[in-house]
């Protein structure tokens, strides 16, 4: 693909100090280090501060800024029609776990080979700081008239119980860790989730940089932590361990890989079982017409209905 003559990134209008800067930086570094040619990358996003991510890329990628809660569904359509693309979803916690929770759960059932980055800031940033589904009950961030009366959703446990095959957590201000997680998530075959703790200095005055800096620790430093399923029998036990671990939240907050299972076939592989031609024919590259004439041979199908 010809590189645009002028590639001027858009002006980034996130608030100064926003955790999103850490995320986009890590994401760009990860892509560069993986040596992915940007034309093969599509960043799909939802609506919210996080939803603007693709517009703010400094690498020349393609971006699809979709609807609130629906990023996963667009991404699925894109990936399945052109499996050669690297598809990354960037979306907020309101986006994915509130309005988009139904897609979040059901995407797990398919295990399409994509990476989902959850911008977990505890608030609805772009609509001025209402509680998001990851804010805990009783917490009162800046814009709330009263402490939050909803319980939070645990993205790690939810992803695991929904069938995600790579489930990790990282932290926006640990760009190096996040970058490595993103690389691992992209390389993972199947649906990967990274729950990124993302301070929102404007509205979330509880889960700040200071708050996380002193709590976050790396799972990899935990002796004996091995979240990778290597045999089918290990699945249940590793899932349960990951879930139990995901309940740890307080003085210590674990980041890193909670669960990975590449034994589960990806959706693309499952399609190919039913339609073997899918293996070597990328739908987006099949030519269904030749100088205007349709190439489909409809005869077999007509024959079934012949009377």
């Amino acid at each position, binding site marked *: *693909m*010809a590189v*645009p*003559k*002028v*590639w001027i990134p*858009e002006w980034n209008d996130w608030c100064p100090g926003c955790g999103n800067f850490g995320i986009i930086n890590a994401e760009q570094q990860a892509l560069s280090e993986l040596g992915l040619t*940007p*034309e*093969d990358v599509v960043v799909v996003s939802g*609506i919210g501060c996080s939803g603007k991510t693709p*517009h703010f890329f400094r690498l*020349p*990628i*393609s*971006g*699809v*800024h*979709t*609807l609130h809660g*629906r990023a996963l*569904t*667009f991404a*699925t*359509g*894109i990936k*399945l*029609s*052109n499996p050669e*693309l690297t598809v990354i979803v960037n979306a907020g916690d309101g986006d994915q776990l509130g309005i988009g929770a*139904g*897609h979040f*759960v*059901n995407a797990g059932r398919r295990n399409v080979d994509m990476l989902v980055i959850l911008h977990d800031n505890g608030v609805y940033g772009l609509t001025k700081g209402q509680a998001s589904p990851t804010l805990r009950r009783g917490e009162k961030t800046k814009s709330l008239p009263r402490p939050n009366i909803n319980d939070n959703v645990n993205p790690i446990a939810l992803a695991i119980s929904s069938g995600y095959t790579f489930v990790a957590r990282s932290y926006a201000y640990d760009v190096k860790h996040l970058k490595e997680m993103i690389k691992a998530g992209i390389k993972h075959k199947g649906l990967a989730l990274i729950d990124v703790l993302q301070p929102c200095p404007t509205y979330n005055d509880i889960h700040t940089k200071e708050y996380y800096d002193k709590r976050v620790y790396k799972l990899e430093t935990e002796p004996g932590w091995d979240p990778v399923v290597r045999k089918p029998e290990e699945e249940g036990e590793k899932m349960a361990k990951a879930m139990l671990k995901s309940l740890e939240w307080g003085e210590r907050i674990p980041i890193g890989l909670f669960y990975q299972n590449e034994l589960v076939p990806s959706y693309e592989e499952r*399609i190919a079982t*039913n*339609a*073997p*031609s*899918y293996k070597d*024919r990328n*739908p987006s590259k*099949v*030519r*269904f*017409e*030749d100088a*205007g*004439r*349709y*190439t*489909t*041979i*409809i005869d*077999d*199908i*007509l024959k079934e*209905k*012949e*009377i």
Partner: protein
Amino acid sequence: MKISWEIGGAQGAGVDTSANIFGAAVASAGYYIYGNREYYSNIKGRHSYFNLTISDKRARSISSVVDILATFDAETVFQHFTEVRGVIIYNKGVKDTKLDRVQSMEPEIQERVKEFLESKGLGTTVADALKYVESKGVKLIELDYDEIVKKTAESVGVPMSVAERAKNTAAIAASYALTGLKKDYLMDALKKTFKQETFVKINSIAAEMVMAGIKPMFQLKELPKQGRRIQVDGNTAVAMGKIFAGLSFQSYYPITPASDESVYIEAHQEVMAVDPETGDKRKRPIVVVQSEDELAAINMASGAALTGVRAATATSGPGFSLMAEGIGWAGMNEVPVVVTYYIRGGPSTGQPTRTSQADLLFAMHVGHGEFPRIVIASSDHVEAFQDAVWAFNLAERYQTPVIHLVEKAIANAYSIFDVSELELDRLRAERGKLVETPDGEFQRFKFTEDGISPRVVLGKAYVFYTGDEHNELGHISEDSENRIKMYEKRLLKLRTADREIPEEERIKVHGDADARIAVITWGSPKGAVLDSVEQLSGEGVKAQVIQIRMFNPFPKNLVKKLLSNKEVIIDVEGNYEGQAGVITKLATGIEPTNYILKWNGRPMTWDEVYDGIKLALKGEKRVVLHGGA
């Protein structure tokens, strides 16, 4: 020549299979058929029926008056006896069944049948209903279903439970015997359906047994067939059209009466195609995703369309309501995506298995904000196929969602027609301003004279999409001047379409151009309208029929021209508001003088339209049709 045949029984008791066997037999003898299927939103036990028109010419509607009624149970007799003018085939065992013992019948209907019978001074058993029709000259054919099953079982040497379905075959065989056609066709049809030897045997024996005792009522002759004929329902016709036109991605969430289309495609997930590069025949895949809901379905399809594949989804009212936001995104991002919209009875869950034309205005306005929504509507199975192809071309050419309306009355009805009618050779792919090899920076939303920008697919250039207002590059823009231009650009495409698409293609005109009467219609009523107008023409009443195929952009000049010399304009459609009439009025300033409307969920029959037109001509402004059990 037309014969109207009807068969009914409890859902799950084999009504469909029976209708198919009978239809196949008659069709093999060279006849055309139009068949409509009615059923409750229920899996087992409620009343369902099939209504066929058999004709030596292409059939396109059903009739309110039934020549042969084949019944499986008491309810079918109670629900349909008043429609019959020829023969009723019934089970001896239900003669004494009392109306109030038929629990599957809804209380409102029972009440009405009861009143009717009582008003005739009759009791409320099946026998009473039969007595009534007999007095009107209807012939009765009594079969003893249990006896037939028993005998069949004995003669094949199987338990009675295995021979259970011989009942159904008995009803078909009796019907078939009445046609006067030679029995081979029926026997072949039974063979094809039941494949397994024992079952073929059971059903053939039952058929022979019954036919032996019945004298033909009609003298149907075998007709010569030229070329290939197919029998398809609307779901299949659309599916075939999509597959032919290169569909590579279909997402759907199950819903009546749309999902059968997707299930059909699922069963044909690979199709043979010529590879233009090599000239070889190779299989190509079609990705079909059963999504978690309709929000996902439309958005997955849009996502797929961005990669350049032909992508579609299919749904019905409740699902379409959920797609409103997604269709808006597609409009804003100029995505060529096709939504096949099967209209069923609304509002809300409504009557999930009944037909309707009440969603037209909603389809025209779906989604907040102003953007071009192209809306087309098919009126029969051939059009359903062709319009599925057309929809993709329109979507790609004008880079906007296309809504293809198909009603339940087409989806679940079928017709037999010659393959040549599809005009496969005439159908061409139009991909609009698709750029295969973009060069440098790509302005996906470039301002152009016709509002249509060059399009590139994901993976071939760096492109941006956003539901926010955007600049030519696809980045968010709140600038007020860009807003004015970009907004106008999108809507300009509709004007371009209006200029480019010949108005002659957007309507079909039938009948007499000099007539002082015009009939406006669209979708499934067309067949009934044409048949009624043909009948009226024979009686010296001439009318011109204007069938609207595209509602947006509306062919206003041509319709206006056609209507301007008419004295009577009758709008015939399946809703309460006269929605096509509303659109016509708005576009042309000319309002229908009369309306023939129906919203009881049952398709229009040609004879009720015929009566309706006569009433309209007598001055009735608004004729409401009630036909159909």
